[in-house]
């Protein structure tokens, strides 16, 4: 694997170096701090494409600041479950960056805690709790949002698992770092049909998981919202935690998409501070490119009927199956 590039530690079981621990913390901090920035960039692009002014790319930070200074208002029908989703979702989103290559392309001390599948499961745990949150207060909008989210995820989750299986079969290992190395090292693998199909399938799933499918509105003004409907009853710091968690989830999915599949270059190899900062800047650049594509796909298509959500998901399933078959034929 990447044993030759690991600095300092000479034997297994020896104390890991301080630099690696710092890098691990820096990964989590990157996701934490840059998540809202990505959300801001996407919203700004969307507004610009629709010929509006846009609120500026730092608006989500101002929103979070404002929300943390507001009061918590609890609905009367809320139960003990009301407090759980924000905290748990936030924590999950803090956990996943430990497992995936965010800044460095070698695995850090506790990166072996979970593989691709484990990361996917933790993300799903967060989504699951937010769905419960929508149902908890028995409000109409919460119910609609949760039921629609579940309908979409019934098709999306198996496809996501299939994509992960495809990635695993491509690299013959379950760690995202191995995939990253393979794609950087071998052009033939990068341009192989299996990899291209996986990129396409994951792109569709990216749209689905970050609520960018053209079947609903991502603001809370219109009736056919999914994401906003579930968290409609939250206020104050709890709402801030939920919004932050969803922007971090978006950041994480983009990270997996870029650093593992599409643009695996630009990660720090040695683990120096300059390398880490460069990797973070590179992340922003890469994500901006992907965000352009996402915004383009979403705004170029007019709103579809809700039941047509199965079409892009069926296409994604198909592409994942073709990718798996492609891995068998090489």
């Amino acid at each position, binding site marked *: 694997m990447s044993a030759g590039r690991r600095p300092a530690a000479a034997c297994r079981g020896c104390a890991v170096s301080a630099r690696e621990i710092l890098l691990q913390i820096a990964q989590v901090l990157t996701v934490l701090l840059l998540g809202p920035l990505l959300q801001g960039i996407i919203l700004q692009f969307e507004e610009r494409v629709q010929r509006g002014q846009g609120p500026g790319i730092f608006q989500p930070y101002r929103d979070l600041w404002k929300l943390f200074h507001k009061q918590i208002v609890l609905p009367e029908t809320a139960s003990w479950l009301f407090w759980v989703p924000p905290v748990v979702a936030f924590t999950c989103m803090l956990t996943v960056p430990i497992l995936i290559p965010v800044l460095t392309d070698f695995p850090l001390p506790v990166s072996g805690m979970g593989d691709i599948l484990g990361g996917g499961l933790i993300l799903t745990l967060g989504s699951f709790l937010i769905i419960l949150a929508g149902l908890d207060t028995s409000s109409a909008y919460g119910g609609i949002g949760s039921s629609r989210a579940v309908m979409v995820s019934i098709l999306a989750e198996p496809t996501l698992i299939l994509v992960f299986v495809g990635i695993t079969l491509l690299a013959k290992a379950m760690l995202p770092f191995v995939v990253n190395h393979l794609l950087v090292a071998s052009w033939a693998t990068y341009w192989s049909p299996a990899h291209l199909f996986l990129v396409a399938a994951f792109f569709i799933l990216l749209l689905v998981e970050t609520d960018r499918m053209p079947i609903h509105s991502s603001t809370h003004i219109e009736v056919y919202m999914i994401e906003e409907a579930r968290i409609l009853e939250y206020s104050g710091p709890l709402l801030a935690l939920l919004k932050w968690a969803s922007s971090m989830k978006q950041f994480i999915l983009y990270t997996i998409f870029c650093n593992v599949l599409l643009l695996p270059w630009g990660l720090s190899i040695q683990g120096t501070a300059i390398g880490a900062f460069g990797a973070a800047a590179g992340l922003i650049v890469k994500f901006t490119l992907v965000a352009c594509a996402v915004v383009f796909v979403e705004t170029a298509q007019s709103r579809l009927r809700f039941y047509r959500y199965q*079409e892009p998901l*069926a*296409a994604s399933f198909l592409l994942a199956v*073709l990718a798996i078959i492609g891995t068998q034929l*090489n």
Partner: protein
Amino acid sequence: MLIQNLDPLASSLFSLLAIASLLLSFVMLGSRWLKNYLYAFAAESWAIAALSAIIGFYGGYPELYLIAILTLLFRGLLLPYLIWRIIRRLDVDREIHEILQPSSGLVIGALFVMFALAVSYRISAEFHLELTVAVLALTVMLSMKLIGFLMLAVRHEAISQILGLLVLENGIFLGSQILVPGMPLLIELVILFDLLIVVACFGVLVRYLLALVGTTSTLQLKRLVG
């Protein structure tokens, strides 16, 4: 035999073109608009013509260049043009009452590809050919056949049925180019012209259908029972 000593670049080019054809037939399966079917079919024919030319280059069969050019002209340009003329004369743009939704069609198509892969493994195991190109060729050929049959079965517009038949023929042509590139030239030429005559006949029949039955949707053809 050709597929037994291929260099890797040739092998990956074959794979790319074959999988591109398969993907285009899935595009046909997953869309509702007749014009999209047509464009996907034309693109698929072009991919197969490119495949013929590449096989002719690597295998040393100069007559395959002729076949490639003829495929490009006839299957890639003339046939889509004829069908486009038929579509233009009709009043329909898409399947109105679908029997099978496009998304379910895509999922069933994926299952067909898995079945075709299983069959191809069995066949190539018989020859002790662990050659991926042979398996790929067989898989793509069989899956395009199955997808063509699916289109014939669940699409009720006359044009979609014609295109389903043409996808069937495309699949066989693709497979025969990879597996048996040495097939006598005469047969391949005659099959190509035969397709042209078939589509011309279909054009006449669609005109009759429109005039006598009043619609080209075969859902209305239910007078003969028992």
